[in-house]
């Protein structure tokens, strides 16, 4: 078949050059995809997120950005009352900013992702842990008992934790969040990113001031005390179990699958902050065994906690744990606490020391 180039008009030439450009881009894209696939394939199994964590993480991140974005747009509009209707519509109907934030790589922020991944794994652990029967048939669950406590502080803190965990469970069912439930610093970061992305969509407009105003209000309304994690820390501090009671309270919290409370109780006993303690519990292994011994728990309680965590996560090796149990039980609580001493320093201080170490 012969091609008579004389028949091509200018429009066709323009389309052809676009096509060529696209073809070249497609080659580059294919190269990048291959590189990503290679990275993915050689990723060590213990670094890879399992599918369930990955899916829940995506849901959480999407829901989190959506709630901030919705809040910002709604508030910006209320500040624009009586303003330009076209502008109101552009704010109201703007495309979701999630893709833009992902494309820029802003969401790869290590602090944000560390918090989100840990939180997702903590929430999933609640689903995966086996519920254990109470010591005495017919006794109510731990938080229900604490909520009926004569000590009003304990009762309030227990109710607050139940309410916060109820909100968190709703995320998995409905894919919706009513608030980000992030620590204040991360919430702050996320709100300004979303605000900037909305501003970018609108271009330079008179709406700038309204968006800033809306963001400031969203920030002012955030109460990090509403988070499951804060509620658990508050309850652990309010109960303040004596060393002799700790094993019982911890076992009940674990049996009722109150993971956040279990982490908070261990952290409280060892003087380690929640985020660090959560990392230790989620990672398992030597640091966790040291932490359990450091908290003065006996062999049977260590075995019970270790077994439950192994049951919840197929990646944890229950046979290996059973092999190690004698050695773990042989460590004295003082030795264990000594080994964990650096973790009791302020996390920012530890991070700064680590940074300094890297630049040596």
């Amino acid at each position, binding site marked *: 078949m012969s091609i008579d180039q004389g028949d091509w008009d200018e429009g066709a030439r323009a389309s052809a050059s676009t096509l060529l450009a696209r073809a070249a881009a497609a080659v580059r894209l294919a190269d990048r995809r291959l590189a990503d696939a290679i990275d993915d394939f050689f990723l060590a199994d213990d670094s890879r997120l399992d599918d369930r964590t990955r899916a829940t993480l995506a849901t959480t991140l999407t829901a989190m950005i959506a709630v901030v974005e919705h809040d910002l747009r709604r508030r910006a509009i209320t500040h624009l009352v009586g303003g330009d209707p076209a502008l109101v519509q552009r704010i109201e109907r703007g495309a979701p900013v999630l893709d833009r934030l992902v494309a820029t790589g802003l969401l790869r922020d290590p602090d944000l992702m560390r918090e989100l991944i840990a939180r997702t794994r903590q929430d999933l652990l609640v*689903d995966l842990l*086996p*519920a*254990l*029967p*109470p010591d005495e048939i*017919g*006794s*109510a*669950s731990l*938080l*229900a008992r604490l*909520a*009926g406590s004569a000590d009003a502080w304990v009762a309030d803190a*227990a*109710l*607050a934790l*139940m*309410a916060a*965990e*109820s*909100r968190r*469970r*709703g995320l998995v*069912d*409905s894919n919706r969040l*009513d608030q980000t439930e992030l620590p204040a610093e991360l919430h702050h970061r996320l709100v300004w990113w979303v605000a900037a992305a909305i501003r970018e969509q609108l271009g330079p407009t008179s709406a700038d001031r309204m968006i800033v105003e809306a963001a400031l209000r969203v920030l002012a309304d955030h109460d990090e005390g509403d988070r499951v994690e804060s509620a658990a820390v508050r309850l652990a501090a309010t109960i303040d179990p004596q060393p002799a009671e700790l094993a019982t309270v911890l076992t009940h919290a674990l*049996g*009722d699958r109150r993971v956040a409370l279990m982490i908070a109780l261990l952290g409280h006993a060892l003087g380690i902050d929640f985020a660090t303690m959560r990392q230790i519990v989620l990672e398992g292994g030597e640091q966790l065994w040291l932490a359990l011994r450091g908290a003065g728990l006996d*062999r*049977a309680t260590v*075995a*019970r906690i*270790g*077994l439950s965590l192994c*049951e919840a996560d197929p990646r944890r090796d*229950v*046979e290996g744990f*059973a092999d190690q*149990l004698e050695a773990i039980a042989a460590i004295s609580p003082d030795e264990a606490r000594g080994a964990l001493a650096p973790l009791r320093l302020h996390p920012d201080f530890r991070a700064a020391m680590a940074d300094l170490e890297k630049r040596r």
Partner: protein
Amino acid sequence: MSAVDAGLPPVHGFVDRDGRLVDAGPRLDDINTRAGGAIGEPFAVSQVAVLVRLAQRLGITVARHVLVADGPDEVELWVRADPVEDGVRLALSGWRLRAPWTPPVDLARRDRDLLLQGADWWWETDATLRMTAVDAGAARFGVTPENVLAKPLASLFALEMDAEGAMPMLGVLTVRQPFEGQAATVRATGQAVTLSAHPTLNAEGLFAGYIGTVRAETRELPQPTDDRASDPLDAFSARLDRALRTPLGRIIANADSIHAQTEGPIRHDYADYASDIASAGRHLLGLVDDLVDLQAVERPDFVPAAERIDLADIGRRASGLLSVRAGERSVKIDAPQDIDSAPATGEFKRVLQILVNLIGNAVRYSPDGGMVWIRTHRDRGTAVIIVADQGKGIAPEDQARIFDKFERVDPSEPGGSGLGLYIARRLARAMGGDLTVDSAPGQGARFMLSLPGAGG
């Protein structure tokens, strides 16, 4: 796992320190033999043997749900391995056959997802039916999670009969089965709703609580059918029910939220007044429930069903329902033993209602730390169940009075409408039996419910 199998009792076994199965109940012996093992030889059911070894090494009880191959089939077992000095004690329950291949899905998650379809909000309880989680979305329907968490399920919902006079939930609560389509009202708001729920199981396969859903309904409260509507008393009762329940619900909800200081701090004594208002409102709601029952039992055409029932069994279930209330006062309920039985003829639901009333009274009038006894016996074609307490007793001259309308065992005690015993006796007599009392001041009281016996 959608249901607790109450079918086969657990089978026990014992594995010695060297991993030999030295003792096995019949079904365990069978399955071990088919797997190539024998008594006194190494335990051959590998999935269970792994648990035995683990329990021994860890030195703690290991409980797990396992699937055991048995010829071409798979048997679903709940295994509990208890390490003791010279070996490991085994208890295996479940024993349900499963299809050789089932899709690899998370059944608990799937059940939850299915349950949540079309629901307005959800709740979860522990094994004592106290609320442990409530959907934040319940707030859109006037239920503040903070006000109901940790409270008994029954304090959140009032159950209602459906058109056939059935209450799907009442029958299954005691046997911990799933239920759906239970008509109820939310006590705090008077909202008509439909409840459905699945039991959740713990690692030993035992009941750990319910996860349930609520669907808001626009239906009216149950209406009397046409021929009954002509009865002015019925019509009055129905109107009373509708006219009182909604406003009372609102009063209670508002008083609760004032008490909880949801709108901001208020003076402590005002918060306490609000709590008094809420509890007075709840008392009135209980009275409305009793009046509706009264209307039913006083109708001349009221005929309870004649079912074959076991008074000992219903006694055990009723004490189970009241165990939380008794526990709060440290009152012990000594329920009939599993081997006791007193076959009778009557309507299950109505007999349960009577016994809940009698045991509830007994708990209420018991001293703290006291004891309530429930005993059954058969007597010349009659089955009898007795509820006895250590309360202050009832003087002979008051014993007839307490079965009258609006009379109370002790008028100085708070709570109660004075209709419970009246309704209970009407029900007992309608079923061809009777309800009597035997007591002396300072000696406690014994209530005897007798029903026609059912042989066997």
